[in-house]
């Protein structure tokens, strides 16, 4: 039977992968996907702790995190569409000025 440590270690590894994606990728869509990976890592530790404590609060928190993730994806992708319309580039480093 896996213990709490197993789930937390998996969550830590997934979070590190997400962080690496945000740091290393040069593509706005992949950066947003990496953020989703990180949110999932956080969700996993929430559910694992909820299971460990024997309460359903972990799953309720997961519900709220998923809702926020949906809102974030919608607004983030709308921003990406607007940016690409302005500059025609998905490279985050193409957007280094505040105004153009």
């Amino acid at each position, binding site marked *: 039977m896996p213990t709490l440590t197993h789930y937390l270690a998996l969550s830590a590894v997934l979070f590190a992968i997400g962080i690496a994606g945000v740091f*290393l990728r040069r593509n706005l869509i992949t950066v947003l996907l990496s953020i989703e990976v990180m949110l999932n890592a956080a969700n996993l530790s929430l559910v694992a702790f909820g299971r460990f404590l024997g309460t359903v609060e972990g799953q309720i928190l997961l519900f709220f995190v998923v809702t926020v993730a949906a809102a974030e994806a919608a607004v983030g992708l709308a921003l990406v569409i607007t940016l690409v319309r302005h500059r025609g580039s998905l490279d985050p480093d193409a957007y280094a000025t505040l105004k153009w």
Partner: protein
Amino acid sequence: MASELLLFYLFAAVAVVASALVVGQRNPMHSVLLLIVSFAALAAVYLLLDAPFAAVIQIIIYAGAIMVLFLFVVMLLNAGREAVQAGTKVAAGARAAGGVLAAVLGVELVWAVAEARRVTGAVPLDVDPAVVERLTSVRAIGQKLFTEYAFAFEVTSILILVSMVGAVVLAKRRGEP
């Protein structure tokens, strides 16, 4: 139960490999599809954690709704491959430093978790049938959600409304009605 541990390792390996490929991939379309694989594996891990509600939410909302949104945008923008624009070269050192920092964070987190285990010993999860029954029941979750967390739930609906309006305003072409 050894089989449960085996299943955990299987799904954990699928989730980690798929997530690593999401990050290591140059084609955003492949990244999105691989992320769906990772989400499915995580849903299986939620099932191992006696959280069927979380697993179903993961499949329906994440793998279903959010990933379709991503796929739609990838197709809309025709983002076939990662194109590095001329003149926006990032210092290789900065990227290397980012990679090193991410690796350090991962090692640090795993070390902290392992150290906590060393201090407290292995903490087995509660296997009391009554507890498991309460955790797996969607009724218990719904009751909590609509009584104790009713306010947070309502605030969530406002958040969704705001993000919906925001997305429409942002994605609309200027000058269009």
